[in-house]
């Protein structure tokens, strides 16, 4: 299970961010925010290659002592960031990848909602 999931707009403001231990929300906000550095880096470093390969998954962005941060970027440069507990060794790359894919699908569903204005905060039920 991911401890924090964030959907971040192209302009780097959060569309949706939620963490499961809610008392330490700030830490995760900071974590997600700093991980954008790496996302930027990865996008700019291999932007071309990414487009060519249609690979949206960015892999491990950076590990900290307690958490691992994974990234995913859609074609419209909307970023998904997932924070996973480092001690959770059961989560492999493939699981993370499929989680991102599911997240992408639900994001697409949100975008398809005619009552949703692109750019607004996303509400989750």
């Amino acid at each position, binding site marked *: 299970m991911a401890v924090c999931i964030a959907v971040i*707009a192209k302009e780097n*403001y959060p569309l949706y961010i939620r963490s499961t231990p809610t008392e330490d929300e*700030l830490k995760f*906000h900071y974590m997600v925010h*700093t991980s*954008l550095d790496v996302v*930027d880096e990865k996008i700019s470093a291999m932007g071309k290659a990414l487009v060519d390969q249609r690979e949206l998954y960015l892999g491990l962005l950076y590990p900290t002592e307690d958490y691992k941060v994974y990234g995913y970027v859609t074609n419209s440069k909307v970023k998904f960031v997932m924070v996973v507990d*480092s001690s959770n060794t059961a989560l492999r790359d493939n699981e993370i990848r499929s989680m991102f894919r599911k997240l992408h699908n639900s994001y697409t569903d949100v975008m398809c909602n005619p009552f949703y204005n*692109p750019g607004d905060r996303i509400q989750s039920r």
Partner: protein
Amino acid sequence: MHSAGDQNLFTSIYPTLSQQLPREPMEWRRSYGRAPKMIHLESNFVQFKEELLPKEGNKALLTFPFLHIYWTECCDTEVYKATVKDDLTKWQNVLKAHSSVDWLIVVVENDAKKKNKTNILPRTSIVDKIRNDFCNKQSDRCVVLSDPLKDSSRTQESWNAFLTKLRTLLLMSFTKNLGKFEDDMRTLREKRTEPGWSFCEYFMVQEELAFVFEMLQQFEDALVQYDELDALFSQYVVNFGAGDGANWLTFFCQPVKSWNGLVLRKPIDMEKRELIQRQEATLLDLRSYLFSRQCTLLLFLQRPWEVAQRALELLHSCVQELKLLEVSVPPGALDCWVFLSCLEVLQRIEGCCDRAQIDSNIAHMVGLWSYAMEKLKSLGYLCGLVSEKGPNSEDLNRTVDLLAGLGAERPETANTAQSPYKKLQEALSSVEAFEKHYLLIHGGVGALSRFKQSCSTSAFGGNYISGCCEVSALDHCRIQKRRIPVPGTGLLFRTWRLSSPWPHSELNDSCLFLLVRFPQTLSAYWRFKCFLALEVMTEEVWKVLDLSNKQCFIGEPKESRKNEGWWEGLWKDCGHASVRWRSAMLALVMPNNLVFATFARRKRSPQKAEMYLQGALKNYLAEGWALPVTHTRKQLAECQKHLGQMEKYPLSPVFHEIISHCLMYGGVAHNECAVTALLVLYFEGKRGHLEPFCPPSYSGGPHSLTLNFSYLQTSSLLASDHHLTEEERKYFCQEILSYASQQEDNPGHKVVLPMHSFARLKDLHFDPPNAVVHAGGVLTVEITVCSQMPIPVHVDQIAVNVHFSIDKNNYRKTAEWLTKHKTSNGIITFPAEASQFPASQNSLPALELSEMLERSPSDNSLHTTGIICRNVHMLLRRQESVSSLEAPSGLALEDGAHVLKCSSVTLQPGANKIEFRTQAKEPGTYTLRQLRASVGPVWFVLAHIHPIVQYDVYSQEPQLHVEPLADSLLAGIPQKVKFTVTTGHYAVKNGDSLQLSNVEAMLILCQAENRAVVYSNSREECSTALLRIQSSDKVTSIGLPTAPAYHVIEFELEVLSLPSAPAPGGDTSVLGTPEPHRKQKDMQRTDHCMVTTDHKVSIDCPWSIYSTVIALTFSVPFRTTHSLLSAGTRKYVQVRVQNLSELDFELSDSNLEDMGHAAGLRLTPLNTHSQQLIHSKQSVFFVWELTWTQEPPPPLHCRFSVGFSPASEERLTVSLKPYTYEFQVENFFTLYNVRAEILPASGAEYCRTGSLCSLEVSITRLADLLDVDKDEALVESEEYFSTKLMYEVVDNSSNWAVCGKSCGVISMPVAAQATHRVHMEVMPLFAGYLPLPDVRLFKYLPHHSAHASQLDADSWIENDSLSVDKHLDDQLDCSSVRSRGSTHSASSSEHKGLPMPRLQALPAGQVFNSSTGMQILVIPSQDDHVLEVSVT
């Protein structure tokens, strides 16, 4: 390599051999599909010893002899047989026993020796013998090396052959053995699930392989071995965590006793290796060793930044693994280890690669720096080094334990001053040392962060300032070092290093020094550069200085060009670097409570922390991260609070002065323009200019004021922040309140804060709702304010600043505006403020795209098509930096005379209603501008109220309106008229009255119960009063009830316009009109409009010396026409009364009297009813018979009168005057009787169609000569009078065709019973009863008659049923027509004076056509078989 045989010989050859062997590369083909590689073989030769041969199960590959060589120089068969052969056999046997197949026999041929021995068998050389004896199938295992020590071509050749052979064999053997080794290793690895398996053993085996690869310079392969080991170990740890424990792993679970960090300076840390070999290593030992090896290899591979990257991963995973394995670690031990390791890695990297490489890979280093900082921080907390009191004994004990765990410093670093070990030891030794080291590292991160800020080109404006710091730092270098650094990224770091750890404070000192000592010698540019470096200015100042006015401050052109170059270079270079600025920022933000506390304690550069925080905050705001914004603000607040509390702030008095000037000049706010201007003035030595702006005395430190100001601002933002807990919000709110209460003894000093954090204006309600009030009236404005504060706040005063403008037309404008913008109930709702976090895409306007088609002008074919975006300028506009969100720029208290105030209000959290009451004074438009709330000296200001809210005050002159109640007033009956007195600014006193001058034709009816009603301005009824009306002959006085100003008095009066008949116009006479059609048309036209009469009433009002004239228009409800009817000689007068009004009337007492009272004339009414109802839009006719006894009767002057009253109403109080109509009847006496008769053709009984009949017209004169005959037509001859008449037979219905002359002039004798007969031929055109043709009679006047009669002739011609062509040149066959045509020409050519006769119609009463209405039967002609049907 294992060499046996002649050792002396080998020794002599060895130097050449070992030198030559690695010279040529060999292609190494590898198993498992690995790519072949070119390698250089380098080998070691050892003397053959049997014990060196590998035994079964030996794992050592490094010491393994790959090739066994037997050297011999033997060239003598005897010797060979005696010793060498035995020796060789023995050697071979040994090898076979060890199943070694890689061997080589080298026979060295020496010419010198050959010559000595003569008994050489030429056929079978020693070589052949050896080959025969030992190499039964592998003849290539014996090589000849001839004359190795000589320098000849033969020697060279043989050497080459030998070396190639040797290399091939060596590689073969190596490959074989390596393959075997790898297989063995794999086998060993497969056994890892078995109980007895040991990781350490396996580690040694695989490391052997790595060593071999390393030896072969195959670092990549070597690294792979270590990575495999790493992965294997990690996997075990993970599995252990999952419950799958391996026995060997328990070794690694022993408690950690030593934490001396990574050692990366030695290629192989033998100490640790031995520990592993002895299976005594701890997890940290293993990891350290493994990483040091990996690091070594990576550095060989020239990938130092990968070291940094891996180091961070390693450190993280080690911490995790220790947790996972539940290894007991003393508190702080891991922190020490990580800290040391981080620094070790950083130092190692910096030591081994050049600056450029580091700069391009800063990203990886930020992580290590911040990790180290984090760890040092936690160590600081652990050892009590950050507490106020310093460490206690417990903390000291812990510190000692930790230091013990570090062990002794390693010999290789003992001599370096900056070793991590020494750093840590020092840092833990005392509070001061700790702070120093902590800030040092913090400075490292800060440098990276600042580096970021200057890099980020996107937020140019916001981050430019930080760039300024950097550049000023560069300038500093120039000043101090007299050295021009290379522009670019590397520079920044060097700069930092030069002045580390206090780059800015040192800079400040020197700048300040320069500035104060040599203000005149420094160029303006340098002055400002120094100034910037001082970090005192707010960001706004910097922005203004450097962005817009940069040119102004650059004194010397040379300098300026250099400066430009720097900037450009800086941006260019930095633009490409990817820097993890967010991480760096986080590193700065997170631990800042520690940083600024230490900063504060050390009393050095305390704004620095604030500056960092402001920078971070700006970025978070720009990217819209709510929680980080809140957190950073919290930090900032704490920081600012500390700054504000500092009593003595080390700033030169010069700057105190400047700042105080700035503050004063720009209000309390930081008005950047003012500041800039001041700076310029100051430095230009024109301080005198400032004096007017400075208040005479200013107490209180201005700088602390700024700080307090920013602290209060941050506090207010935080107090309204919903991300904080209730307690925190209350705390910050309390901070503001306590500040406010403290400052109460310091009057006149104000702190202006933006309103939006304090409260939000929700809606506004005007009373009166239309927001228009008369001068002196009371206006109520009720605002709803949503307090954002968590607790009730007592506000001293809430005020709305009002802008007053006099605009004459504003009242009307406002009315329009009201209908558009205001809801009917006068509530204005303010839109909720846009989210604090600007989502840039939301603020962008929508694309306005339109299609564009261009056609070529020549052939109109389409040659260009495209899409145009019409609002590109909007979209591509540079995004403004968000700095204004926090900046207080432009907030100033507006002063104005018009202020709505409300004192002493307590704002509860949430919505509050506040009511302002004001009495309107001057008329004009009042615009609500600024809303402000004051809590002590703290003013919360909403600079602009948007949308615009206005109210209007008007002043009005007293006015009187008089208007009828109904649509129009009718004359003759009492009608109500409403009087409206709008008092305006005039208050009606008791006794004021309206004086109406009377008009004769209009009566003002005074009723007993006339009431006046007084209304207030908003149309509410105030009072009623009886109206006092006094009438005299000329004046009616109406006493007004008392009414205050801006009220309305309304009352009604009845007026009666006396009806008067309009004078009958000449042309309204319908007697004998020859143009009935036209008359009818006229009638229709006039049907709808009533005749009106205007009555002007002049009224004297008490408020004015001038009298008001009011015109009342009354309409006459009736229209009357009369006509004369005659039958033979009997005459009747008919009067038609037409009701034009909407009302029904009752008519009574109709009467017609002769005004002339002629004797013998009598009017006999034929009307039966005395009372008649006349309905709206209908007519009533009255007829009188006119009889006379005396002949001829005189012209009759009549007056018709009829009484009328509205039919529906009850009895009226006043008697109404009858309606009268006067008219004249003339020439009603019949003079001629015309009689026409049609007789069938002679012999025929009836008239037939198509056959001629005779028309007999007889004109009989009925009277003798009368007065009326006396005109020009009268001809007198011998007492015999005759008059000329023209007759004309006209058949309008075309029933008859008149044959021959249809008209003629006769001379009629003027005598009774004189008769003139005319005979004419007419032909009926149709069958049936046909009316006779009309016979008309005219007076035939001679040409010199009056001009007036011409009109009649004209009209006659026009209305003639015969077609008359008006063109003179047309030929007309009828003579009469021709004559008429000439009449016409006469009319048109009258000026020529041609004498032409004229015609005058006889008045209708004078001619009686007795045959009118007669018909004659016409029979269709018998032989007419053709029936003509005309279809029209």
